[in-house]
């Protein structure tokens, strides 16, 4: 399992209600179900991934986070997880609002465009950066709204979303991934 998933799982509380938005093939959900809480649901857009989730015995709803989060009542989950997909939405702000409405807390991870490798890539090559976390070319990347950890923290501050990120400049330079727990 990805290291990121262990980090996310550690942020959750036992017996809490968890919604994994864009749960993929259910790897993280399965880990959470077996180790933290059985009360886990997933929302996933890919039919192939849903089949994999069903085979794992997970409860998953086919749907699009940009359209289908609205069916979940406010504060119906203790944690709503969104792993590395915020940047791929047409309207990330709308999704952020929905995450914070449905979940008492949201756990959000983002690929960090402020990482030093990305910065050097752009500085010296003069082309859109391609790294391990950002493997696509500019013309086929699903990432429509890339941001840095600093951008994300600034956004949360501006919108009065609670977020904790000490040593921001240091973290923004050295982390390939930002994982945050946020709440309204």
């Amino acid at each position, binding site marked *: 399992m990805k290291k990121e998933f262990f980090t996310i799982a550690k942020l959750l509380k036992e017996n809490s*209600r968890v919604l994994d938005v864009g749960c993929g093939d259910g790897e993280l959900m399965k880990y959470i179900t077996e180790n933290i809480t059985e009360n886990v649901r997933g929302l996933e857009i890919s039919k192939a991934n849903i089949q994999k989730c069903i085979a*794992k015995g997970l*409860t998953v709803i*086919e749907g699009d986070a940009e359209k289908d989060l609205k069916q979940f009542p406010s504060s*119906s989950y203790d944690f709503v997880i969104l792993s590395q997909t915020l940047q791929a939405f047409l309207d990330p702000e709308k999704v952020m609002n929905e995450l914070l409405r449905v979940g008492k807390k949201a756990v959000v991870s983002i690929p960090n465009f402020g990482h030093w490798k990305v910065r050097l890539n752009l500085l010296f090559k003069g082309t859109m950066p391609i790294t391990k976390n950002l493997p696509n070319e500019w013309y086929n990347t699903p990432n429509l709204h890339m941001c840095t950890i600093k951008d994300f923290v600034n956004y949360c501050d501006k919108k009065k979303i609670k977020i904790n990120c000490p040593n921001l400049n240091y973290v923004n330079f050295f982390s390939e991934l930002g994982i945050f727990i946020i709440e309204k």
Partner: protein
Amino acid sequence: MNKIDKIKKIVIEKPLKLDCGKTIHNFPLAYETYGKLNEKKDNAILVFHALTGDQFASGKNPITNKEGWWSYALGPDKAIDTNKFFVICANVIGGCMGSYGPSHLDNSTGKPFGTNFPVITINDMVNAQYNLLEYFNIKKLFSVIGGSMGGMQVLQFISNFPDKSHTVIPIACTASHSAQNIALNELGRQSIMADHNWMEGFYAENKKNPDKGLAVARMAAHITYLSKKGLQEKFGRKLQERDDLKFGFDADFQIESYLRYQGSVFVDRFDANSYLYITRAMDYFDLTKQFSGNLSKAFEKTSSKFFIISFTSDWLYPTPENREIVIALNAIGKNVGFVEINSDKGHDSFLLDIPDFLNAVKNYLETSYKKIK
């Protein structure tokens, strides 16, 4: 042995109050079972059939000698694996495969009921079938499953008996029959009633049968079970055993010939009055209205796990109508999974060999069964 003797029946002695206000009692309910009920009696699945289905869901139907309507999904090692599960399927009341219906003899007249049979609803069908749990001494089913009208029965069942099934699988259905579907059903009914052999429903005692009307009803309905793409790919404008158009009204096109065939074989196995009664029951189905416009309330008392399935090309019970059930369940935090299966086979997809669909059902049942152990 007479074919009809191969139909298993229970006689429901206690009175059942129907939605129309009438009460029935001492009426037969025909059923079939597949697989074995285990000692703990925790492996039972109640399958509900659709409009023209019957209790012979799998294997050879002893009456028609055709494969059961859900042979792809139900049987040993299949999606609903009868090596593991004990499956019960009953003919709905109002039907014509041995259960109490309009072709049944009315003891007060000695003639078949015809249209003197009371109008029944999905709720009545489900309440009648509930007696099977007592008959088999099953405290809680493992699952209730059904597609189309079978799915409506699934929803009504869990609403009526919230603690009687661990899992609930409504497929390609709706919580509230749409205007379009009522319209299509009305087309079929009018076709039957326009046949002069229908005789206001008393054709049996007059030794007649409204075959033409029933065949046209089936032809019209059959189109709604397919998709435009499916029809185009299978038939296109292909001609039926001829090189060119004949400038007449014979079946020039393969699709015409196909529909005529579907209509003609249907009248051999189905009763016209049953068709009227069952389509009426579907039209009257509105679970949302039963709960004063709040569908969530229908499921408030249950802690069952739901798995809802729709098909991309189903325009009769399209995905948004299935999704409404998901939304109602989500609104009250119930355990609900949902998948829309890719298929260009239309509403009929749930009866066909669609691997993604069958795998999803199989995996869902088997992983869920492990959890209740």
